[in-house]
């Protein structure tokens, strides 16, 4: 078994997702079965194969490096769950 209680807690922590005990157990089961299934990729010989990260066959053009100020902070802040004097507000991080 690749994923145990400790591993799922570690991944959940890295993902910033709180899991309760029931969820942890379910995900341990799910993730192990998915990881067992993807294991079949080890049958494939990938020696000297370049990993593929961009599939596009067209040449990706560069753009000119010019700044473009849309100054829409007020509009953007309208979506914020909490805001204060033109800034996003979050719980206090320093005592």
């Amino acid at each position: 078994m690749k994923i145990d209680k400790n591993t799922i807690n570690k991944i959940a922590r890295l993902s910033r997702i709180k899991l309760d005990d029931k969820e942890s157990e379910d995900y341990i089961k799910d993730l192990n079965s998915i990881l067992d299934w993807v294991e079949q990729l080890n049958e494939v010989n990938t020696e000297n194969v370049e990993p593929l990260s961009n599939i596009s066959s067209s040449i990706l053009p560069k753009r000119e490096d010019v700044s473009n100020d849309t100054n829409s902070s007020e509009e953007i802040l309208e979506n914020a769950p909490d805001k204060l004097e033109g800034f996003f507000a979050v719980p206090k991080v320093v005592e």
Partner: protein
Amino acid sequence: MSKSSLKQTLKDLDTKKISIRELNQDYLKRIKENENLNVFIHFSEDNVLKQIDSLEKDNSAKKLKGIPIAIKDLFCTKNMPTTAASKILENFNPTYESFVTQKLLDEGSIFVGKTNLDEFAMGSATNTSFFGNTINPLSKDDEPLAPGGSSGGSAAAVAADLCLGATGTDTGGSIRQPASFCGVVGIKPTYGLCSRWGIAAFASSLDQAGIFSHNVEDASILLQSIAGFDQRDSTSAKVDIPNYFENLDDDLNGKTVGIPKEYSIDGTPKEISQIWEDAIKVLEKKGVKIKNISLPHTKYALPTYYIIAPAEASSNLARYDGVKYGFRSDEIDSLDEMYENTRAQGFGREVKRRILIGTYVLSAGYYDAYYLKAQKVRKLIANDFNKAFKECDFIVTPTAPSAAFPLNEKQNDPIKMYLNDVFTVPASLAGLPGISIPFGKDKNNLPLGIQILGKHFDEQQVFNAALSLERSYE
């Protein structure tokens, strides 16, 4: 009632046989009659009426002026909220318009509403949405069927004739599979043909916008409208966009179709093998040369996809933290608590599952074994297609391994659900254009789909082959 096509409607509007207002009133009526299907996450009659008002004052000629279009709720729209079918984006009002929807607005189309989908496009049945299931319009009363997914709302909107076309996105089959389930046409173009700018990201190396429509001609008109280069998407392609519709040609004489032997999979229902054979016979009669090809790494496409897509999703969805927009939990004693509770309460089960798996395969010590390995196998899958396309002009396969299944079936076993994408995922990994068209029925009279794949940026060939098959079937 026979559904009118986009092509015919454009003529009727042009000759003043019908007005923009009359046309859209007709669609509004049907939308309201079909509320039980739960096709739309956002629908506002007032909003549609406002759009009609402003178009009536607009004297300029526009290609899609007055045409009712449904938009998958993964595209950011300025005049309607955008949720990605997630609680975490509840009440999110984008400050900008996506590239694809802006193009449609520029051409004068009317957005009838934002359609339901699997949460963040992760699913194959439109059953992971925070806003409930969408029901396939082809369901019988006693058994509601799934519309497929993730773009199930858009496919259902076209099937129920609630619009003349709809946008979708396809990461591993999310346009083609629901098109097949709902008996409509769905095209996913080449990766890079349509800008991803303004589409809530799922797996960036795979995500691609596309179109649902009643028929192939309509799809060719609409795809041309949403394609194009955009510097705000770094993988947007700078290629010439042909006039697909003008160039349509159903004469396939002398062309070669590739039939990949690896797509004959044990356990595929007989009816699906049958329509595949029927399609091949039709093509043969039309003078198409049949070529048996091999795509040897096909069986590894699904496991490759289910490493790459969750890995990219775990990174893309890191932005939903309850700070800048969307949902924030009430339990926020510290910043970390705020993040963890917001994401725990804001994401649904399938999305969390994929974030967790993606985080695992990217984590220190496992990256090479999973993510890098999957990227290498992806290269081999792409090479298979490159080689095959040296011997054929297009490839024909079934779209999905089944017809529409009952709602709520297949929910407990994730791998069983993932198998829905068995025929669509390989082309997604290779970035190829693919279309699904209705072709034949199963024993319950439900539609089945045939998939046509083409070379990179050869959407024209895909449309031509699709048109030819469509005309032979009708």
